[in-house]
């Protein structure tokens, strides 16, 4: 399965919404990183990552999220994550990234 990334901007919350669909692994993580960093630099807004249709993420994908969070915080913005599946939440917990990211409960 490959990766598609849908983006939109919510004017009511002034927040960029990024929706990865598929799998983020060593093969697709560079594509996701490029898109996410572009959005942060272009919109200069907070970002909401909606993981409703994200089926899988690995350590390289988690690395991308950390890079994006650093980029966002360098311009005083934040990244929120929502609709995360249990298998993915488990990885955030194991790597203690659940303490770093703002993850909204489903």
């Amino acid at each position, binding site marked *: 399965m490959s990766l598609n990334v849908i983006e939109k901007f919510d004017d009511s919350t002034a927040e960029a919404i990024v929706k990865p669909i598929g799998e983020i692994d060593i093969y697709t993580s560079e594509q996701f990183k490029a898109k996410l960093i572009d959005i942060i630099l272009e919109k200069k807004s907070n970002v909401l990552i909606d993981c409703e249709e994200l089926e899988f993420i690995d350590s390289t994908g988690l690395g991308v999220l950390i890079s994006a969070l650093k980029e966002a915080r360098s311009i005083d913005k934040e990244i929120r994550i929502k609709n995360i599946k249990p298998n993915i939440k488990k990885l955030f917990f194991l*790597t203690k990234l659940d303490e770093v990211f703002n993850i909204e409960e489903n």
Partner: protein
Amino acid sequence: MEGIVNDKINLTFPAKGEYISLARLTTSSVASKEGFNIDDIEDLKVSIGEACNIILENTSISSEQNIVIDYMVDVEALNISIKARKENGLDISEINKEENFSVMIIDSLMDDVELSSEGDCMSVNILKKKRL
């Protein structure tokens, strides 16, 4: 259905990121045939992907080389060995295990993980026991 206990299965693929999903899929299939539950199958799938990541990300392995995965099935556990030939880059046995996300994940999900290097071969060896 006849089990696959004591059988040996292997998968060989080019050392390229696009084939890691194939390794995850094959692992799910082997683990499922061996009777692991859904949670353990998911853990094995994640761990195999991370083991391949360790080789691809931390060594300067050429994409012309292969990664070989050996699955050794027995009554109580699944032993998986992910191997590649050593080149001139960093050896996986030199990885700082405390700081490496991949190692951290495999270590948490599996019963045993060992990163080894012997001669011109480096390997990540994983053990997952069946819950009886």
